[in-house]
Protein backbone atom coordinates (compact mmCIF):
# COMPACT_ATOMS: atom_id res chain seq x y z
CA UNK A 1 0.00 0.00 0.00
CA UNK A 2 1.34 3.40 -0.95
CA UNK A 3 0.39 6.39 1.15
CA UNK A 4 -0.01 9.95 -0.04
CA UNK A 5 -0.53 13.06 2.06
CA UNK A 6 -3.12 15.45 0.65
CA UNK A 7 -1.73 18.94 1.22
CA UNK A 8 -4.20 21.82 1.35
CA UNK A 9 -1.91 24.67 2.48
CA UNK A 10 -4.02 25.26 5.63
CA UNK A 11 -4.72 28.95 5.54
CA UNK A 12 -5.65 30.23 9.02
CA UNK A 13 -7.77 33.33 8.74
CA UNK A 14 -7.22 35.97 11.48
CA UNK A 15 -10.96 36.64 11.46
CA UNK A 16 -14.07 34.57 10.74
CA UNK A 17 -14.94 34.35 7.08
CA UNK A 18 -18.32 34.21 5.36
CA UNK A 19 -19.13 30.58 4.59
CA UNK A 20 -20.43 31.13 1.09
CA UNK A 21 -18.34 30.36 -1.96
CA UNK A 22 -16.81 32.31 -3.59
CA UNK A 23 -15.23 33.95 -0.53
CA UNK A 24 -14.47 37.65 -1.14
CA UNK A 25 -10.90 38.17 -2.28
CA UNK A 26 -10.65 41.27 -0.09
CA UNK A 27 -11.03 39.07 3.01
CA UNK A 28 -7.67 37.46 2.28
CA UNK A 29 -4.87 38.25 4.73
CA UNK A 30 -1.44 38.43 3.06
CA UNK A 31 0.54 37.50 6.14
CA UNK A 32 -1.72 34.58 6.86
CA UNK A 33 -1.30 33.39 3.29
CA UNK A 34 2.47 33.71 3.32
CA UNK A 35 2.56 31.87 6.66
CA UNK A 36 0.35 29.08 5.28
CA UNK A 37 2.77 28.38 2.44
CA UNK A 38 5.81 28.49 4.78
CA UNK A 39 4.17 26.03 7.16
CA UNK A 40 3.23 23.89 4.18
CA UNK A 41 6.88 23.30 3.38
CA UNK A 42 7.77 22.61 7.04
CA UNK A 43 4.90 20.17 7.29
CA UNK A 44 5.89 18.41 4.08
CA UNK A 45 9.47 18.02 5.25
CA UNK A 46 7.97 16.18 8.23
CA UNK A 47 5.72 14.17 5.92
CA UNK A 48 8.73 13.18 3.83
CA UNK A 49 10.68 12.16 6.96
CA UNK A 50 7.78 10.01 8.16
CA UNK A 51 8.06 8.04 4.95
CA UNK A 52 4.96 8.99 3.00
CA UNK A 53 5.30 7.94 -0.63
CA UNK A 54 3.61 10.96 -2.17
CA UNK A 55 2.41 14.43 -1.36
CA UNK A 56 -0.64 15.41 -3.36
CA UNK A 57 -2.07 18.79 -4.30
CA UNK A 58 -5.42 19.63 -5.84
CA UNK A 59 -6.86 22.61 -7.73
CA UNK A 60 -9.44 24.80 -6.03
CA UNK A 61 -10.33 28.43 -6.61
CA UNK A 62 -11.73 31.46 -4.80
CA UNK A 63 -11.57 29.99 -1.28
CA UNK A 64 -9.28 29.78 1.77
CA UNK A 65 -10.23 26.13 2.34
CA UNK A 66 -7.62 24.76 -0.05
CA UNK A 67 -5.23 27.53 -0.98
CA UNK A 68 -3.95 26.00 -4.24
CA UNK A 69 -5.69 27.43 -7.31
CA UNK A 70 -2.56 26.58 -9.32
CA UNK A 71 -1.43 23.09 -8.35
CA UNK A 72 1.42 23.30 -10.85
CA UNK A 73 2.85 26.20 -8.85
CA UNK A 74 2.46 24.38 -5.52
CA UNK A 75 3.98 21.25 -6.97
CA UNK A 76 6.95 23.08 -8.48
CA UNK A 77 7.64 24.86 -5.22
CA UNK A 78 7.37 21.62 -3.26
CA UNK A 79 9.58 19.79 -5.76
CA UNK A 80 12.28 22.41 -5.35
CA UNK A 81 12.25 22.20 -1.55
CA UNK A 82 11.88 18.44 -1.08
CA UNK A 83 14.18 16.08 -2.89
CA UNK A 84 12.83 12.56 -2.31
CA UNK A 85 9.05 12.44 -2.06
CA UNK A 86 6.90 12.04 -5.17
CA UNK A 87 4.56 14.84 -6.03
CA UNK A 88 1.08 13.97 -7.20
CA UNK A 89 -1.05 16.60 -8.94
CA UNK A 90 -4.55 15.32 -8.27
CA UNK A 91 -5.21 17.22 -10.33
CA UNK A 92 -5.43 19.92 -12.92
CA UNK A 93 -9.06 20.69 -13.75
CA UNK A 94 -9.05 19.83 -17.43
CA UNK A 95 -12.27 21.34 -18.81
CA UNK A 96 -11.43 24.95 -18.09
CA UNK A 97 -7.78 24.62 -19.00
CA UNK A 98 -5.69 24.97 -22.09
CA UNK A 99 -4.83 21.27 -22.38
CA UNK A 100 -1.69 21.94 -24.41
CA UNK A 101 -0.44 24.27 -21.71
CA UNK A 102 -1.23 21.66 -19.04
CA UNK A 103 0.79 19.12 -21.03
CA UNK A 104 3.73 21.53 -21.30
CA UNK A 105 3.68 22.54 -17.64
CA UNK A 106 3.52 18.94 -16.45
CA UNK A 107 6.37 18.01 -18.81
CA UNK A 108 8.51 20.83 -17.42
CA UNK A 109 7.61 19.98 -13.87
CA UNK A 110 8.33 16.26 -14.28
CA UNK A 111 11.76 17.17 -15.63
CA UNK A 112 12.49 19.80 -12.97
CA UNK A 113 11.43 17.29 -10.31
CA UNK A 114 13.74 14.56 -11.62
CA UNK A 115 10.85 12.37 -12.73
CA UNK A 116 8.97 12.43 -9.40
CA UNK A 117 5.63 13.52 -10.82
CA UNK A 118 2.31 11.66 -10.70
CA UNK A 119 -0.61 13.14 -12.63
CA UNK A 120 -4.34 12.89 -12.04
CA UNK A 121 -6.65 14.54 -14.56
CA UNK A 122 -10.19 15.40 -13.65
CA UNK A 123 -13.37 17.24 -14.37
CA UNK A 124 -13.39 19.19 -11.12
CA UNK A 125 -15.84 19.70 -8.29
CA UNK A 126 -19.20 21.26 -9.04
CA UNK A 127 -18.33 24.73 -7.78
CA UNK A 128 -15.22 24.90 -9.96
CA UNK A 129 -17.32 25.18 -13.09
CA UNK A 130 -18.03 28.70 -11.91
CA UNK A 131 -14.40 29.63 -11.38
CA UNK A 132 -13.63 30.14 -15.04
CA UNK A 133 -17.06 30.45 -16.57
CA UNK A 134 -17.28 26.83 -17.62
CA UNK A 135 -20.71 25.58 -18.70
CA UNK A 136 -21.24 22.54 -16.42
CA UNK A 137 -23.17 20.79 -19.15
CA UNK A 138 -20.07 20.89 -21.34
CA UNK A 139 -17.60 19.90 -18.66
CA UNK A 140 -17.70 16.12 -19.19
CA UNK A 141 -17.04 16.39 -22.92
CA UNK A 142 -14.38 19.04 -22.46
CA UNK A 143 -12.66 16.84 -19.87
CA UNK A 144 -12.60 13.77 -22.14
CA UNK A 145 -11.31 15.73 -25.11
CA UNK A 146 -8.80 17.68 -23.03
CA UNK A 147 -7.38 14.53 -21.45
CA UNK A 148 -6.94 12.93 -24.85
CA UNK A 149 -5.22 16.05 -26.16
CA UNK A 150 -2.84 16.11 -23.18
CA UNK A 151 -1.84 12.50 -23.83
CA UNK A 152 -1.40 13.25 -27.54
CA UNK A 153 0.71 16.34 -26.82
CA UNK A 154 3.01 14.29 -24.61
CA UNK A 155 3.51 11.47 -27.08
CA UNK A 156 3.10 12.59 -30.70
CA UNK A 157 6.57 13.15 -32.16
CA UNK A 158 5.47 15.30 -35.13
CA UNK A 159 3.77 18.72 -34.95
CA UNK A 160 0.03 18.14 -35.26
CA UNK A 161 -3.22 20.02 -35.47
CA UNK A 162 -6.29 19.14 -33.44
CA UNK A 163 -9.83 19.46 -34.80
CA UNK A 164 -11.70 18.85 -31.62
CA UNK A 165 -15.25 19.56 -30.55
CA UNK A 166 -14.23 22.02 -27.85
CA UNK A 167 -10.55 22.61 -28.55
CA UNK A 168 -8.85 23.53 -31.79
CA UNK A 169 -5.17 23.95 -32.49
CA UNK A 170 -3.35 24.17 -35.79
CA UNK A 171 0.08 23.10 -34.60
CA UNK A 172 1.18 21.48 -31.33
CA UNK A 173 4.71 20.34 -30.64
CA UNK A 174 5.66 20.49 -26.99
CA UNK A 175 9.15 21.06 -25.61
CA UNK A 176 10.25 19.70 -23.19
CA UNK A 177 8.65 16.28 -22.95
CA UNK A 178 8.14 14.64 -19.56
CA UNK A 179 11.24 13.01 -18.09
CA UNK A 180 9.30 9.82 -17.35
CA UNK A 181 8.67 7.72 -20.42
CA UNK A 182 6.25 7.86 -22.11
CA UNK A 183 4.79 10.17 -19.45
CA UNK A 184 4.33 10.33 -15.67
CA UNK A 185 2.01 7.73 -14.11
CA UNK A 186 -1.34 9.22 -15.07
CA UNK A 187 -4.80 8.69 -13.65
CA UNK A 188 -8.28 9.67 -14.78
CA UNK A 189 -9.86 10.76 -11.52
CA UNK A 190 -13.53 10.28 -10.81
CA UNK A 191 -16.08 7.57 -10.23
CA UNK A 192 -18.00 8.16 -13.44
CA UNK A 193 -18.27 5.55 -16.15
CA UNK A 194 -16.71 8.10 -18.50
CA UNK A 195 -13.61 8.44 -16.32
CA UNK A 196 -13.36 4.66 -15.85
CA UNK A 197 -13.78 4.02 -19.58
CA UNK A 198 -11.26 6.69 -20.53
CA UNK A 199 -8.74 5.27 -18.08
CA UNK A 200 -9.28 1.72 -19.38
CA UNK A 201 -9.03 2.76 -23.02
CA UNK A 202 -5.84 4.74 -22.54
CA UNK A 203 -4.17 2.43 -20.00
CA UNK A 204 -4.34 5.00 -17.22
CA UNK A 205 -4.98 4.54 -13.53
CA UNK A 206 -8.23 5.49 -11.86
CA UNK A 207 -8.88 7.53 -8.71
CA UNK A 208 -11.96 7.64 -6.50
CA UNK A 209 -12.65 9.78 -3.45
CA UNK A 210 -14.43 10.18 -0.15
CA UNK A 211 -17.32 7.73 -0.56
CA UNK A 212 -17.81 4.59 1.49
CA UNK A 213 -15.76 1.54 0.50
CA UNK A 214 -18.80 -0.21 -0.97
CA UNK A 215 -19.79 2.75 -3.11
CA UNK A 216 -16.22 3.35 -4.31
CA UNK A 217 -15.95 -0.33 -5.15
CA UNK A 218 -18.73 0.11 -7.72
CA UNK A 219 -16.45 2.44 -9.64
CA UNK A 220 -13.25 0.50 -9.17
CA UNK A 221 -14.78 -2.79 -10.24
CA UNK A 222 -16.33 -1.12 -13.28
CA UNK A 223 -12.86 0.27 -14.07
CA UNK A 224 -11.31 -3.17 -13.80
CA UNK A 225 -14.01 -4.67 -16.03
CA UNK A 226 -13.35 -2.03 -18.65
CA UNK A 227 -9.61 -2.64 -18.47
CA UNK A 228 -10.27 -6.34 -19.08
CA UNK A 229 -12.37 -5.40 -22.12
CA UNK A 230 -9.34 -3.57 -23.43
CA UNK A 231 -7.11 -6.53 -22.76
CA UNK A 232 -5.16 -5.45 -19.68
CA UNK A 233 -5.19 -5.54 -15.89
CA UNK A 234 -4.34 -2.56 -13.69
CA UNK A 235 -1.84 -2.93 -10.86
CA UNK A 236 -3.15 -2.02 -7.38
CA UNK A 237 -1.00 1.09 -7.48
CA UNK A 238 -3.10 2.27 -10.41
CA UNK A 239 -6.11 2.79 -8.15
CA UNK A 240 -6.08 5.77 -5.78
CA UNK A 241 -8.57 6.28 -2.97
CA UNK A 242 -8.62 9.81 -1.55
CA UNK A 243 -10.21 9.88 1.88
CA UNK A 244 -10.53 11.66 5.19
CA UNK A 245 -8.91 9.92 8.14
CA UNK A 246 -9.09 10.68 11.86
CA UNK A 247 -6.63 8.63 13.93
CA UNK A 248 -6.79 8.99 17.70
CA UNK A 249 -4.90 7.34 20.52
CA UNK A 250 -8.16 5.48 21.14
CA UNK A 251 -11.36 4.84 19.24
CA UNK A 252 -13.18 7.22 21.60
CA UNK A 253 -10.66 9.99 21.00
CA UNK A 254 -11.10 9.58 17.25
CA UNK A 255 -14.90 9.61 17.54
CA UNK A 256 -14.70 12.79 19.60
CA UNK A 257 -12.68 14.42 16.79
CA UNK A 258 -15.26 13.23 14.29
CA UNK A 259 -18.06 14.87 16.23
CA UNK A 260 -16.23 18.19 16.05
CA UNK A 261 -15.94 18.15 12.27
CA UNK A 262 -18.18 20.94 10.94
CA UNK A 263 -21.08 19.73 8.85
CA UNK A 264 -20.75 22.43 6.23
CA UNK A 265 -20.19 21.67 2.58
CA UNK A 266 -16.62 22.30 1.40
CA UNK A 267 -17.53 25.03 -1.08
CA UNK A 268 -20.96 26.06 0.06
CA UNK A 269 -22.94 27.83 -2.62
CA UNK A 270 -26.02 29.90 -1.90
CA UNK A 271 -29.28 28.03 -2.11
CA UNK A 272 -30.45 29.35 -5.49
CA UNK A 273 -27.17 28.46 -7.12
CA UNK A 274 -27.00 25.10 -5.40
CA UNK A 275 -30.47 24.13 -6.59
CA UNK A 276 -29.86 25.30 -10.13
CA UNK A 277 -26.52 23.59 -10.54
CA UNK A 278 -27.81 20.30 -9.17
CA UNK A 279 -29.83 19.90 -12.33
CA UNK A 280 -27.08 21.14 -14.66
CA UNK A 281 -24.11 19.19 -13.33
CA UNK A 282 -24.86 15.52 -13.81
CA UNK A 283 -22.60 13.00 -12.11
CA UNK A 284 -22.55 9.24 -11.91
CA UNK A 285 -20.82 6.33 -10.23
CA UNK A 286 -20.01 3.73 -12.88
CA UNK A 287 -23.11 4.87 -14.75
CA UNK A 288 -25.43 5.11 -11.74
CA UNK A 289 -26.63 8.72 -11.46
CA UNK A 290 -25.70 10.56 -8.31
CA UNK A 291 -26.33 14.11 -7.19
CA UNK A 292 -23.37 16.50 -7.40
CA UNK A 293 -21.60 17.17 -4.07
CA UNK A 294 -23.07 20.51 -3.14
CA UNK A 295 -24.40 20.02 0.37
CA UNK A 296 -22.89 18.64 3.57
CA UNK A 297 -19.41 17.75 4.65
CA UNK A 298 -17.40 15.04 2.95
CA UNK A 299 -17.51 11.74 4.84
CA UNK A 300 -14.64 10.42 6.95
CA UNK A 301 -14.16 6.76 6.14
CA UNK A 302 -11.21 5.97 8.39
CA UNK A 303 -11.87 6.69 12.08
CA UNK A 304 -10.39 5.12 15.16
CA UNK A 305 -7.32 4.05 17.05
CA UNK A 306 -4.26 2.91 15.10
CA UNK A 307 -5.38 -0.73 15.39
CA UNK A 308 -8.87 0.10 14.16
CA UNK A 309 -7.58 2.16 11.27
CA UNK A 310 -5.14 -0.56 10.19
CA UNK A 311 -8.09 -2.97 9.96
CA UNK A 312 -10.08 -0.40 8.00
CA UNK A 313 -7.18 -0.03 5.57
CA UNK A 314 -7.07 -3.79 5.16
CA UNK A 315 -10.80 -3.84 4.44
CA UNK A 316 -10.45 -0.93 2.05
CA UNK A 317 -7.82 -2.80 0.10
CA UNK A 318 -10.09 -5.84 -0.21
CA UNK A 319 -13.26 -3.95 -1.08
CA UNK A 320 -12.03 -0.97 -3.12
CA UNK A 321 -8.82 -2.53 -4.41
CA UNK A 322 -6.88 0.73 -4.09
CA UNK A 323 -3.12 0.43 -3.85
CA UNK A 324 -2.69 4.13 -3.01
CA UNK A 325 -4.38 5.97 -0.14
CA UNK A 326 -4.39 9.76 -0.51
CA UNK A 327 -5.18 11.03 2.97
CA UNK A 328 -6.42 14.14 4.68
CA UNK A 329 -5.52 13.57 8.31
CA UNK A 330 -7.48 16.51 9.65
CA UNK A 331 -10.34 18.41 8.06
CA UNK A 332 -9.07 20.75 5.33
CA UNK A 333 -9.86 24.36 6.08
CA UNK A 334 -9.71 23.62 9.77
CA UNK A 335 -7.87 26.52 11.37
CA UNK A 336 -6.12 24.25 13.86
CA UNK A 337 -2.68 23.30 12.56
CA UNK A 338 -1.20 21.63 15.65
CA UNK A 339 -3.78 18.80 15.70
CA UNK A 340 -2.65 18.07 12.15
CA UNK A 341 0.97 17.76 13.24
CA UNK A 342 -0.13 15.44 16.06
CA UNK A 343 -2.23 13.42 13.63
CA UNK A 344 0.73 13.12 11.27
CA UNK A 345 2.98 11.96 14.09
CA UNK A 346 0.46 9.38 15.28
CA UNK A 347 -0.32 8.12 11.79
CA UNK A 348 3.31 8.17 10.72
CA UNK A 349 4.57 6.18 13.69
CA UNK A 350 1.65 3.90 14.60
CA UNK A 351 -0.19 3.26 11.31
CA UNK A 352 2.03 3.86 8.29
CA UNK A 353 4.65 1.19 9.07
CA UNK A 354 1.88 -1.39 9.52
CA UNK A 355 0.01 -0.72 6.28
CA UNK A 356 2.93 -0.70 3.86
CA UNK A 357 2.62 -4.41 3.20
CA UNK A 358 -1.16 -4.49 2.80
Amino acid at each position, binding site marked *: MKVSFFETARYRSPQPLPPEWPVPSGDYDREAGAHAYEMMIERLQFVEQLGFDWVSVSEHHYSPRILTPAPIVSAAFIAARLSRIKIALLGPIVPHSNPVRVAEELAMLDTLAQGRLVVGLLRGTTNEAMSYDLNPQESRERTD*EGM*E*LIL*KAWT*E*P*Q*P*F*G*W*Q*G*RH*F*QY*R*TVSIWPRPLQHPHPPTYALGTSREACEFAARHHLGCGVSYGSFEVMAKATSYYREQCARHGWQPAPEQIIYRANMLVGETDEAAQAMLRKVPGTAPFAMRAGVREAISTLDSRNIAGEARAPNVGGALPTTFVGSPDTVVEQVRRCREVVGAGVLDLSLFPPGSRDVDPLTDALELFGTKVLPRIRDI
Partner: protein
Amino acid sequence: MAFSEGYVEADGFRIRYLEAGQGPALVHLHGAGGLRLTRAHDLLSSCFRVVAFEMPGFGESPENTRTSSMPELASTMAQAVTKLGIDAFNLMGTSFGGTTALWLALQAPTRVLALVLEAPAAIRPEGATPPAGTPEEIARRLYAHPERQPATPTLDPALRAKAQRLVQRLRVPDRDPDLEGRLQELTTPTLVLFGTLDQVIAPAMGRIYKELIPNGHLVFVYDAAHAIAADRPEAFTEVVVDFLERHEAFVISRTETLIHP
Protein backbone atom coordinates in the same frame (compact mmCIF):
# COMPACT_ATOMS: atom_id res chain seq x y z
CA MET B 1 -26.40 22.12 -52.72
CA ALA B 2 -27.56 19.48 -55.13
CA PHE B 3 -24.93 17.45 -56.90
CA SER B 4 -25.45 16.81 -60.59
CA GLU B 5 -24.36 13.59 -62.21
CA GLY B 6 -22.12 13.47 -65.27
CA TYR B 7 -19.97 11.11 -67.30
CA VAL B 8 -16.62 11.68 -68.96
CA GLU B 9 -14.76 9.47 -71.43
CA ALA B 10 -11.11 9.19 -70.45
CA ASP B 11 -8.39 6.61 -71.05
CA GLY B 12 -10.91 4.18 -72.58
CA PHE B 13 -13.25 4.29 -69.58
CA ARG B 14 -16.64 5.92 -69.12
CA ILE B 15 -16.23 7.59 -65.76
CA ARG B 16 -19.12 8.79 -63.63
CA TYR B 17 -18.86 11.84 -61.39
CA LEU B 18 -20.97 14.04 -59.13
CA GLU B 19 -20.42 17.76 -59.23
CA ALA B 20 -21.59 20.84 -57.34
CA GLY B 21 -20.43 24.33 -56.50
CA GLN B 22 -18.35 27.01 -58.09
CA GLY B 23 -14.89 28.33 -57.51
CA PRO B 24 -11.53 26.59 -57.59
CA ALA B 25 -11.80 22.93 -58.54
CA LEU B 26 -11.62 20.31 -55.79
CA VAL B 27 -11.40 16.77 -57.15
CA HIS B 28 -12.25 13.93 -54.74
CA LEU B 29 -11.15 10.29 -55.14
CA HIS B 30 -13.17 7.93 -52.94
CA GLY B 31 -12.17 4.99 -50.74
CA ALA B 32 -12.48 1.25 -51.29
CA GLY B 33 -16.19 1.34 -50.45
CA GLY B 34 -16.94 3.46 -53.50
CA LEU B 35 -18.35 6.93 -54.10
CA ARG B 36 -20.59 8.12 -51.30
CA LEU B 37 -21.41 11.77 -50.72
CA THR B 38 -21.29 13.12 -47.18
CA ARG B 39 -22.42 16.38 -45.63
CA ALA B 40 -18.80 17.50 -46.01
CA HIS B 41 -19.20 17.42 -49.79
CA ASP B 42 -22.17 19.78 -49.43
CA LEU B 43 -20.22 22.13 -47.19
CA LEU B 44 -17.18 22.06 -49.46
CA SER B 45 -19.30 22.86 -52.49
CA SER B 46 -20.10 26.28 -51.05
CA CYS B 47 -16.43 27.26 -51.53
CA PHE B 48 -15.23 24.99 -54.32
CA ARG B 49 -16.33 23.34 -57.53
CA VAL B 50 -16.39 19.85 -56.07
CA VAL B 51 -15.98 16.98 -58.53
CA ALA B 52 -16.35 13.60 -56.84
CA PHE B 53 -15.38 10.83 -59.26
CA GLU B 54 -16.53 7.25 -59.25
CA MET B 55 -13.36 5.49 -60.33
CA PRO B 56 -13.67 2.91 -63.12
CA GLY B 57 -14.72 -0.49 -61.73
CA PHE B 58 -16.70 0.93 -58.80
CA GLY B 59 -20.44 1.37 -58.44
CA GLU B 60 -22.40 0.19 -61.43
CA SER B 61 -19.57 0.68 -63.93
CA PRO B 62 -18.36 -2.44 -65.76
CA GLU B 63 -15.68 -4.53 -64.06
CA ASN B 64 -12.27 -2.97 -64.49
CA THR B 65 -9.85 -5.79 -65.34
CA ARG B 66 -7.44 -3.50 -67.16
CA THR B 67 -5.95 -1.22 -64.49
CA SER B 68 -3.12 -3.14 -62.88
CA SER B 69 -1.49 -0.64 -60.57
CA MET B 70 -2.24 2.39 -58.44
CA PRO B 71 0.00 4.70 -60.53
CA GLU B 72 -2.03 3.60 -63.59
CA LEU B 73 -5.30 4.41 -61.86
CA ALA B 74 -3.89 7.81 -60.91
CA SER B 75 -2.98 8.52 -64.52
CA THR B 76 -6.48 7.53 -65.68
CA MET B 77 -8.05 9.91 -63.16
CA ALA B 78 -5.73 12.74 -64.22
CA GLN B 79 -6.95 12.24 -67.77
CA ALA B 80 -10.55 12.37 -66.55
CA VAL B 81 -9.88 15.73 -64.90
CA THR B 82 -8.32 17.01 -68.14
CA LYS B 83 -11.35 15.88 -70.10
CA LEU B 84 -13.54 18.06 -67.87
CA GLY B 85 -11.55 21.05 -69.02
CA ILE B 86 -9.78 21.43 -65.69
CA ASP B 87 -6.07 22.12 -65.74
CA ALA B 88 -4.97 23.02 -62.20
CA PHE B 89 -6.98 21.68 -59.29
CA ASN B 90 -7.05 20.84 -55.60
CA LEU B 91 -7.07 17.11 -54.97
CA MET B 92 -8.57 15.18 -52.07
CA GLY B 93 -8.27 11.41 -51.59
CA THR B 94 -9.94 9.15 -49.02
CA SER B 95 -8.20 6.01 -47.77
CA PHE B 96 -7.63 3.84 -50.89
CA GLY B 97 -8.32 6.97 -52.97
CA GLY B 98 -5.73 8.78 -50.85
CA THR B 99 -3.08 6.49 -52.29
CA THR B 100 -4.41 7.24 -55.77
CA ALA B 101 -4.31 10.96 -55.05
CA LEU B 102 -0.72 10.74 -53.81
CA TRP B 103 0.39 9.03 -57.00
CA LEU B 104 -1.51 11.59 -59.07
CA ALA B 105 0.23 14.46 -57.28
CA LEU B 106 3.61 12.80 -57.85
CA GLN B 107 2.85 12.31 -61.54
CA ALA B 108 1.40 15.79 -62.18
CA PRO B 109 3.01 18.15 -59.68
CA THR B 110 2.34 21.24 -61.76
CA ARG B 111 -1.40 20.57 -61.86
CA VAL B 112 -2.16 19.75 -58.23
CA LEU B 113 -2.44 23.00 -56.25
CA ALA B 114 -2.80 21.29 -52.88
CA LEU B 115 -3.41 17.77 -51.63
CA VAL B 116 -5.76 16.60 -48.88
CA LEU B 117 -5.43 13.02 -47.67
CA GLU B 118 -8.31 11.71 -45.56
CA ALA B 119 -7.05 8.66 -43.60
CA PRO B 120 -4.79 7.68 -46.53
CA ALA B 121 -3.98 4.01 -47.09
CA ALA B 122 -0.55 4.49 -48.68
CA ILE B 123 1.37 3.82 -45.45
CA ARG B 124 0.02 1.16 -43.08
CA PRO B 125 1.29 -0.73 -40.04
CA GLU B 126 2.84 -4.05 -41.05
CA GLY B 127 0.25 -6.78 -41.08
CA ALA B 128 -2.87 -4.63 -40.63
CA THR B 129 -6.07 -6.15 -42.06
CA PRO B 130 -8.62 -4.26 -44.14
CA PRO B 131 -12.20 -4.07 -42.88
CA ALA B 132 -14.17 -7.23 -43.65
CA GLY B 133 -17.52 -8.76 -42.86
CA THR B 134 -21.10 -7.77 -43.42
CA PRO B 135 -21.92 -4.17 -44.40
CA GLU B 136 -23.09 -3.58 -40.81
CA GLU B 137 -19.83 -4.86 -39.35
CA ILE B 138 -17.80 -2.77 -41.78
CA ALA B 139 -19.88 0.32 -40.96
CA ARG B 140 -19.17 -0.15 -37.28
CA ARG B 141 -15.47 -0.25 -37.98
CA LEU B 142 -15.49 2.77 -40.31
CA TYR B 143 -17.50 5.22 -38.23
CA ALA B 144 -17.22 6.55 -34.70
CA HIS B 145 -20.96 7.13 -34.80
CA PRO B 146 -22.54 4.71 -37.29
CA GLU B 147 -26.00 5.53 -35.93
CA ARG B 148 -25.64 9.08 -37.28
CA GLN B 149 -25.05 7.99 -40.87
CA PRO B 150 -28.02 8.09 -43.22
CA ALA B 151 -29.14 4.65 -44.33
CA THR B 152 -27.61 4.04 -47.73
CA PRO B 153 -29.00 1.41 -50.05
CA THR B 154 -26.64 -1.54 -49.87
CA LEU B 155 -24.86 -2.20 -53.11
CA ASP B 156 -25.65 -5.40 -54.96
CA PRO B 157 -23.26 -8.09 -53.62
CA ALA B 158 -22.02 -8.86 -57.13
CA LEU B 159 -21.13 -5.20 -57.70
CA ARG B 160 -19.43 -5.05 -54.32
CA ALA B 161 -17.40 -8.17 -55.12
CA LYS B 162 -16.32 -6.75 -58.47
CA ALA B 163 -15.02 -3.58 -56.82
CA GLN B 164 -13.27 -5.64 -54.14
CA ARG B 165 -11.36 -7.58 -56.79
CA LEU B 166 -10.07 -4.29 -58.18
CA VAL B 167 -9.15 -3.02 -54.72
CA GLN B 168 -7.25 -6.22 -53.95
CA ARG B 169 -5.33 -6.04 -57.22
CA LEU B 170 -4.38 -2.40 -56.71
CA ARG B 171 -3.64 -2.70 -53.00
CA VAL B 172 -0.16 -1.34 -52.32
CA PRO B 173 2.18 -2.94 -49.77
CA ASP B 174 1.94 -1.81 -46.15
CA ARG B 175 5.18 0.14 -46.64
CA ASP B 176 6.65 1.10 -50.00
CA PRO B 177 10.20 2.49 -49.76
CA ASP B 178 10.02 3.71 -53.35
CA LEU B 179 6.86 5.72 -52.75
CA GLU B 180 8.19 7.03 -49.46
CA GLY B 181 11.41 8.12 -51.14
CA ARG B 182 9.42 10.02 -53.73
CA LEU B 183 7.27 11.70 -51.08
CA GLN B 184 10.36 13.51 -49.86
CA GLU B 185 10.48 15.25 -53.26
CA LEU B 186 6.79 16.22 -53.26
CA THR B 187 6.53 20.01 -52.97
CA THR B 188 2.72 20.12 -53.12
CA PRO B 189 1.20 21.55 -49.92
CA THR B 190 -0.31 18.45 -48.33
CA LEU B 191 -2.74 18.06 -45.45
CA VAL B 192 -3.05 14.63 -43.86
CA LEU B 193 -6.02 13.97 -41.58
CA PHE B 194 -6.60 11.04 -39.25
CA GLY B 195 -9.50 10.43 -36.91
CA THR B 196 -8.48 9.70 -33.33
CA LEU B 197 -10.77 6.66 -33.35
CA ASP B 198 -9.62 5.19 -36.67
CA GLN B 199 -9.58 1.40 -36.29
CA VAL B 200 -8.81 0.69 -39.94
CA ILE B 201 -5.53 2.57 -40.30
CA ALA B 202 -3.70 3.55 -37.12
CA PRO B 203 -3.60 7.35 -36.70
CA ALA B 204 0.07 6.92 -35.78
CA MET B 205 0.71 6.55 -39.54
CA GLY B 206 0.04 10.27 -39.92
CA ARG B 207 3.44 11.20 -38.53
CA ILE B 208 5.23 9.34 -41.30
CA TYR B 209 3.63 11.50 -44.00
CA LYS B 210 4.47 14.59 -41.95
CA GLU B 211 8.09 13.49 -41.64
CA LEU B 212 8.50 12.73 -45.33
CA ILE B 213 6.54 15.44 -47.14
CA PRO B 214 8.37 18.79 -47.03
CA ASN B 215 5.20 20.95 -47.00
CA GLY B 216 3.14 18.30 -45.23
CA HIS B 217 0.82 18.95 -42.28
CA LEU B 218 -0.85 16.56 -39.88
CA VAL B 219 -4.22 17.11 -38.23
CA PHE B 220 -6.08 14.75 -35.91
CA VAL B 221 -9.85 14.93 -35.98
CA TYR B 222 -11.16 14.07 -32.53
CA ASP B 223 -14.11 11.69 -32.16
CA ALA B 224 -13.88 10.58 -35.77
CA ALA B 225 -13.00 7.09 -36.98
CA HIS B 226 -11.83 6.10 -40.47
CA ALA B 227 -14.63 7.96 -42.27
CA ILE B 228 -13.65 11.38 -40.98
CA ALA B 229 -15.75 13.57 -43.27
CA ALA B 230 -18.82 11.44 -42.55
CA ASP B 231 -18.27 11.41 -38.76
CA ARG B 232 -17.42 15.11 -38.30
CA PRO B 233 -18.26 16.99 -41.49
CA GLU B 234 -18.05 20.50 -40.05
CA ALA B 235 -14.72 19.99 -38.31
CA PHE B 236 -13.31 18.28 -41.39
CA THR B 237 -14.51 20.99 -43.76
CA GLU B 238 -13.28 23.89 -41.64
CA VAL B 239 -9.66 22.80 -41.69
CA VAL B 240 -9.73 21.51 -45.27
CA VAL B 241 -11.15 24.79 -46.62
CA ASP B 242 -8.64 26.78 -44.59
CA PHE B 243 -5.76 24.65 -45.84
CA LEU B 244 -6.84 24.81 -49.47
CA GLU B 245 -7.17 28.59 -49.22
CA ARG B 246 -3.99 29.40 -47.32
CA HIS B 247 -1.73 26.31 -47.51
CA GLU B 248 0.95 26.43 -44.81
CA ALA B 249 -0.33 29.80 -43.56
CA PHE B 250 -3.34 27.92 -42.21
CA VAL B 251 -1.43 27.65 -38.93
CA ILE B 252 -2.27 31.31 -38.30
CA SER B 253 -5.62 31.38 -36.57
CA ARG B 254 -8.39 33.43 -38.06
CA THR B 255 -10.96 32.15 -35.60
CA GLU B 256 -12.98 35.01 -34.14
CA THR B 257 -13.21 35.00 -30.38
CA LEU B 258 -14.71 38.43 -29.76
CA ILE B 259 -17.71 37.72 -27.52
CA HIS B 260 -19.31 41.16 -27.56
CA PRO B 261 -18.19 44.33 -29.32
